[in-house]
């Protein structure tokens, strides 16, 4: 017990908290970069696919559904390995790590965003569409002016949540040596042979981004509820 406390006390003077921090800060910037750009394209992809799933054309609906199911049904790790290694090996399509990471996030987030979009639109009371139609708006106009603005408002919390998920997902681009936070932290670990402080710090760095996001989202949700 006494030993343990002494051991823990060592942590307070450990140089590794400060040591790993520059690495993590450099890494988290790349994490954020990948996440923002990836989620941005994911949003576009997701909105298109989400609306495609509301389409009456069987083919469009089917394609969108396939994409969504395949992506949601496989680990993003497998997706990124496929994009980074398999495409390069077989088709000679080589993306650098950053691009591969951004593509993986975009494709992955896209599938989830599509479901958020579909769900958001579906959550709007049918009466809104009827009321819009009944005053003579076309179904496109009703979508555009009546349904979409309301749906968007409800989509913000799950979209924010998806942002957090994608942010966390970038961590596994460490396996393709993308210099994001986990990779950078592991670099430090590999050099120093010290595990505790870097990994603990890594957690803190993520929390420093995710917790504020979650708080903001929750506040927004509470506002929506009233």
């Amino acid at each position, binding site marked *: 017990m006494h030993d343990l406390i002494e051991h823990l006390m060592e942590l307070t003077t450990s140089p590794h908290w400060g*040591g790993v921090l520059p*690495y993590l800060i450099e890494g988290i910037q790349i994490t954020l970069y990948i996440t923002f750009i990836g989620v941005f394209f994911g949003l576009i992809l997701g909105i298109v696919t989400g609306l495609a799933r509301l389409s009456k054309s069987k083919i469009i609906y089917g394609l969108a559904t396939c994409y969504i199911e395949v992506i949601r049904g496989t680990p993003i790790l497998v997706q990124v390995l496929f994009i980074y290694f398999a495409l390069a090996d077989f088709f000679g399509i080589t993306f650098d790590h950053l691009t591969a990471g951004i593509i993986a996030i975009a494709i992955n987030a896209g599938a989830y965003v599509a479901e958020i979009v579909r769900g958001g639109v579906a959550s709007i009371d049918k009466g809104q569409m009827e009321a819009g139609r009944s005053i003579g708006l076309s179904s496109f106009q009703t979508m555009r002016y009546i349904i979409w603005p309301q749906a968007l408002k409800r989509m913000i919390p799950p979209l924010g949540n998806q942002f957090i998920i994608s942010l966390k997902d970038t961590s596994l681009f460490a*396996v393709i040596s993308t210099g994001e936070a986990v990779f950078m932290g592991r670099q430090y670990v590999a050099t120093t042979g010290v595990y505790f402080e870097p990994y603990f710090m890594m957690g803190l760095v993520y929390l420093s981004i995710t917790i504020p996001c979650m708080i903001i989202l929750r506040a927004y949700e509470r506002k929506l509820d009233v």
Partner: protein
Amino acid sequence: ACGDADEAEETPDENGEVEEETTEDEEATDEEETLVVATDTNYVPFEFMNEETGEMEGFDIDLIDELSDRVGFDYELEVVEFDGIVAGMGSGRYDIGIAGMTITEDRAEEFDFSIPYYDAGLILAVHEDNEDIQSIDDIDDLTVATRSGTTSEDFLHENTEANVQVYPQILEAYMDVEAGRADAAFYDVPNVRYHADTEGEELKTVGDIEQGEVYGIAFEQDSEWVEPVNEALEEMFEDGTYGDFYEEWFGDRVEEPEGESPLD
């Protein structure tokens, strides 16, 4: 080879100067090409990160820097997990890979190698208190940790009945031994020795060097750079530059590797 000894001091970034001279020398290459050189995240003492500066250092790094000057190319280092280098060389993602990479026939089917530049081999490491394992013959059915995508991994699978655990980082394999999760680690001699001697206090090497290996620099298939690099390497063996680097990183002095490439 166009670089000369004077420019060995130049950092690759300051290529303006170098550029001018090359234009004078040759018309074919009016600019130094920037090659993507992949190196390992951590393979002491061949390449590792200086935790203070964040820069990569090591025997391989000195070597490639010198070679770039002598051969006349500019380069950009990409720090990649070892298994990613092997994969990336195969798919043409990188122009050059320098990562203490063992020359093997399998790899040579996918990409090219320079002449050997280091004599290595594989060896077993166990916890310093472990007296049960004396050689590779004692590890069948035991858990042996090593690094993914390396020749050690292949060797264990092909020549032993050990239960092989592989990690992206070799330190994690050593840690498994120290933490008692693995009975032994198996890896390249220079790295095992380095860790057994310095920080990995609880590790010791046992048995003989299991497989003689030589390291080569990897090139994209049919790369134009193989020949000039080989020539520059030979030069460095002769003029003592190689010996200087060797002494700096390994303590003793070796002027030239003796091992034969398995490809010859």
